[in-house]
């Protein structure tokens, strides 16, 4: 079939439904008359002839149904035909198709990936029955008398007291996250693990896939043999999914423990972002003291109880529970304050998640950015469609001249829109998968792995594709309005409809506005990242290596101390290592040690919570923290000499008004320390924190050597460090020890994960938005220049100056871009208040940032306009005039 015949067949298909029906009625009536006449001529009477004709023709209604069915079948065929035709047309214009599909893919991919993350982290309920009943209990109040940390709220005796006394929950459970080392010795291989109360799995309603879960009978006080339950992932990974898994044991915590069961694949625990691979009963930990703060408590609310009601109930019950469990180690003052802590209950249908607290705002923001990218992509597809439509005006006019109705052309154009959407959405889905996984990998660190189930949410995908599809189709058919406006005539003219031109200008303004917002976001987050990355943290991280060494429990404390000294000496001999020291909490190691100190002051006795760190002599030199006054710890400081401390500048300024702290004393509990040195301020836990008062005490004056030592090494050169030599040195001195390394750079990188993610993604989206806007501006300028070639040619021929011509071509687009920029800046300023907590050292209304944004957009717009404008300028008047 030739193209013309195909067109005609398509046109014929457009005959309206009632016309088809009427035509068919007429045809059958005519056949009836013809039959009747035939029979009459054969000699039948009029009556007989009519009856014979009726019999021969059969029931007209049945025939009509069959004809309609035949036509419907043909309609599906023509639809398929339109699809193939559309594909061919799209393939004939690769630049348009690629740009449109890429725009859709970016918009759809970004939206699905980020809303998918948001859903996984914030919105999705735990995969357990009736997750809506779950609530967690927290303990709030002054930090006088307890340690706080991730999911660490209550002690074991307090938890038992809560469980016994409370009325609001039908059932409760407690758990604590931990990790276990699966490597027999050398560098440790951690997997995430959970200590769980015997009720944990029953209350959650999780059944084992193989064997059984941890049961109440497993969790007896003082148990020394206990079973472990492993995740489906660990079963597959470590045991190759072997069917006799229940006969195996797990070598953890200095013992071999039978594997009692395997958990179902979708169960990850109750903490979103983590997947526990091993579950053990609470008694396996040995933490049963009243001052061991390590458990998180959750439960199912009784029917009719809300979290608020449970909150009121527990806070009323609180003092009694706390009074019953005051740790005997507490001073009288702490014991007095302890019962003033307050319980609170929070609904937890999505489980608990520090990840959510840390990244929740950032994820909302990124999802917002993704939505803006989607908007830009829609605007881009719309504006591309209009360019294409202008080029197709002759074809559409020809079709309409050949009798194609609006409906018919509408269908063809809509199908092309759907094809672009489908191709873009498919690419977007692939992109979303890769991006989601990539973001997770970027956020995960060896010490803090993040595991999220990023399954595709079809609702999000459908809504996203729907938005893009609707836009694409809307703009695909917009040319139809023009097709009607310009009636087909013999000389098919290319006309620049004023209306579509305005629509295109609005789209370009929109694109400029969104790219202003996204470029501003990119610059703000890039500045934040740079500010944090280049800030003075108070110590030299670039040549720092931290080695966490886990000593075997075997040698007695005295022998262990000798072993630890030997390890330190061996490490110092490794080539490339300059100095070795150790500290209980090296900076950015993920934990701090807070303590309450008191000291005399002019206003009487002051008490304050400060950060404490216990370090070995030489630590300050290793981390390059200059000693300002006094001395470092040395051989004089032993367990039998008076306790000494080194404090930082903030400590001195806060408590001694900036006077020299040397020789002054403070008390911590029952111990008194004399301050012998003053060091520079440094950050200890996060980059964003202000310098805090810190006191350093001497490890040489502490009691038994700990099982875990954190050695801090100063390397000769910055950058990559060969840890193999250090590991061999450690194992040589302490066979069977577990080791974990982290360089200073690793620690800092971990501390800036969120900033890195925000800067990276915002930067990427900023570039994408800018590219889309450039395409949009280019399209409009090129189009305006092309449609005005004749006019420009004439004006040039009549002696117009180049500047005037440029003004004609660029004047309007300049206005459009300026309007878009103003809108974008207004939006940026109005939404930026919500993101200040994510920024550091830069304000959203920072004039430098705003000027840089405006400059970037201006340059991009200029670049996009230069080529089409130049072409317009160099138009040869004669050619331009001859063309028409």
């Amino acid at each position, binding site marked *: 079939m030739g193209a013309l*015949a195909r067109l005609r067949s398509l046109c014929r298909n457009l005959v309206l439904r009632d016309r088809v029906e009427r035509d068919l009625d007429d045809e059958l009536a005519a056949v009836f008359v013809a039959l009747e006449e035939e029979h009459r001529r054969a000699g039948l009477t009029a009556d007989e002839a009519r009856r014979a004709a009726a019999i021969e023709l059969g029931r007209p209604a049945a025939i009509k149904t069959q004809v309609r069915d035949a036509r419907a079948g043909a309609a599906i065929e023509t639809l398929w035909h339109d699809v193939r035709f559309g594909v061919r047309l799209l393939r004939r214009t690769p630049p348009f198709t690629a740009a449109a599909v890429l725009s859709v893919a970016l918009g759809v991919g970004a939206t699905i990936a980020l809303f998918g993350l948001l859903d996984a982290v914030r919105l999705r309920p735990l995969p357990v029955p009736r997750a809506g009943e779950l609530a967690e209990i927290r303990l709030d109040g002054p930090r006088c008398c307890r340690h706080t940390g991730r999911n660490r709220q209550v002690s074991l005796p307090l938890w038992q007291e809560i469980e016994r006394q409370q009325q609001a929950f039908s059932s409760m459970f407690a758990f604590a996250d931990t990790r276990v080392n699966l490597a027999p010795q050398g560098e440790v291989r951690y997997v995430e693990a959970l200590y769980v109360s015997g009720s944990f799995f029953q209350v959650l309603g999780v059944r084992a896939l193989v064997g059984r879960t941890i049961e109440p009978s497993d969790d007896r006080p003082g148990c020394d043999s206990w079973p472990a339950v492993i995740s489906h992932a660990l079963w597959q990974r470590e045991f190759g999914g072997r069917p006799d898994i229940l006969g195996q044991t797990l070598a953890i915590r200095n013992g071999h423990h039978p594997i009692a069961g395997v958990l179902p694949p979708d169960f990850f625990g109750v903490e979103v972002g983590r997947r526990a691979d091993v579950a053990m009963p609470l008694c396996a930990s040995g933490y049963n003291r009243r001052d061991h703060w390590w458990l998180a408590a959750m439960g199912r609310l009784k029917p009719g109880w809300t979290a608020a009601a449970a909150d009121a109930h527990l806070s009323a019950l609180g003092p009694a529970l706390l009074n019953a469990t005051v740790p005997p180690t507490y001073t009288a003052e702490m014991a007095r304050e302890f019962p003033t802590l307050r319980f609170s209950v929070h609904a937890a249908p999505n489980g608990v998640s520090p990840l959510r607290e840390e990244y929740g705002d950032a994820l909302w923001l990124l999802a917002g950015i993704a939505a803006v990218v989607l908007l830009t992509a829609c605007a881009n597809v719309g504006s591309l469609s209009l360019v294409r439509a202008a080029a197709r005006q002759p074809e559409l006019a020809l079709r309409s001249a050949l009798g194609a109705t609006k409906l018919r052309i509408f269908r063809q154009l809509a199908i092309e829109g759907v094809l672009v959407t489908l191709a873009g959405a498919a690419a977007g889905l692939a992109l979303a998968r890769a991006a989601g996984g990539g973001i997770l990998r970027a956020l995960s660190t060896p010490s803090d792995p993040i595991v999220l189930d990023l399954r595709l949410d079809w609702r999000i995908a459908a809504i996203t594709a729907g938005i893009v599809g609707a836009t694409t189709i809307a703009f695909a058919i917009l040319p139809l309005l023009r097709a009607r406006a310009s009636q087909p005539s013999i000389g098919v003219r290319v006309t620049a409809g004023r209306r579509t031109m305005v629509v295109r200008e609005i789209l370009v303004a929109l694109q400029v506005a969104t790219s202003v917002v996204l470029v501003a976001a990119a610059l703000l987050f890039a500045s934040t990242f740079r500010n944090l990355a280049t800030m003075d943290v108070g110590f030299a991280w670039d040549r720092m290596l931290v080695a966490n060494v886990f000593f075997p429990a075997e040698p007695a404390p005295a022998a262990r101390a000798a072993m630890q000294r030997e390890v330190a000496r061996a490490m110092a001999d490794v080539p490339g290592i300059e100095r070795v020291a150790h500290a209980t909490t090296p900076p950015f190691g993920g934990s701090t040690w807070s303590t309450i100190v008191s000291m005399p002051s002019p206003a009487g006795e002051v008490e304050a919570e400060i950060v404490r760190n216990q370090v070995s002599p030489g630590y300050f030199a290793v981390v390059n923290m200059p000693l300002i006054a006094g001395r470092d710890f040395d051989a004089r400081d032993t367990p039998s000499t008076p306790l000494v401390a080194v404090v930082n500048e903030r400590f001195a300024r806060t408590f001694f008004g900036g006077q020299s702290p040397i020789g002054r004393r403070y008390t911590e509990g029952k111990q008194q320390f004399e301050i012998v040195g003053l060091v520079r301020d440094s950050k200890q836990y996060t980059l964003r924190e202000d310098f805090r008062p810190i006191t350093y005490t001497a490890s040489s004056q502490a009691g038994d050597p700990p099982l875990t030592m954190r050695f801090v090494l100063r390397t000769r050169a910055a950058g990559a460090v060969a840890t193999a030599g250090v590991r061999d040195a450690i194992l040589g001195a302490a066979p069977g020890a577990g080791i974990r390394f982290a360089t200073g750079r690793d620690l800092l990188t971990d501390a800036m994960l969120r900033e890195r993610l925000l800067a990276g993604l915002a930067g990427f989206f900023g570039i994408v938005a800018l590219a889309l806007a450039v395409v949009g501006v280019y399209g409009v300028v090129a189009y305006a220049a092309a449609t005005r070639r004749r006019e420009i040619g004439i004006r040039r021929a009549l002696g117009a100056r180049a500047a005037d011509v440029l003004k004609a071509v660029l004047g309007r687009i300049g206005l459009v871009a300026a309007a878009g920029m103003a809108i974008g800046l207004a939006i940026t300023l109005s939404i930026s208040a919500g993101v200040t907590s994510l920024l550091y050292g830069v304000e959203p209304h920072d004039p430098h940032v705003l000027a840089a944004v405006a400059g970037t957009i201006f340059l991009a717009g200029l670049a996009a306009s230069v080529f089409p404008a130049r072409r317009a300028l160099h138009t040869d008047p004669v050619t331009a005039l001859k063309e028409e």
Partner: protein
Amino acid sequence: MPRDRATLLQGTLDLLILKALSAGELHGLGVSRRIAQITDGTFTVQPGSLFPALHRLEEAGWLSSAWQASENNRRAKYYALTKAGRKQLGEERAEWNRIAIAIAKALEA
């Protein structure tokens, strides 16, 4: 009158309609009569099969139709082969011959 003495093979009706129209345009009833004539009455196509087939072929672009005055001055809808229809007839004829020879060979073997 022998009715449907031979069951039409799938697709054969289209071939017969295209062949019937190859000599010139006919109205619906004319197509039916012409088929009866060229098959010596072996096939009589009932209107219930004929009209859906005509419309389907028209949709496929192989037939065109127009209202004209009939031989005895009545209005009737006439069908004619399009260029594509003529090409289709050629293809279907070749296909049919191939099958017929194959079947005949198979039966003689």
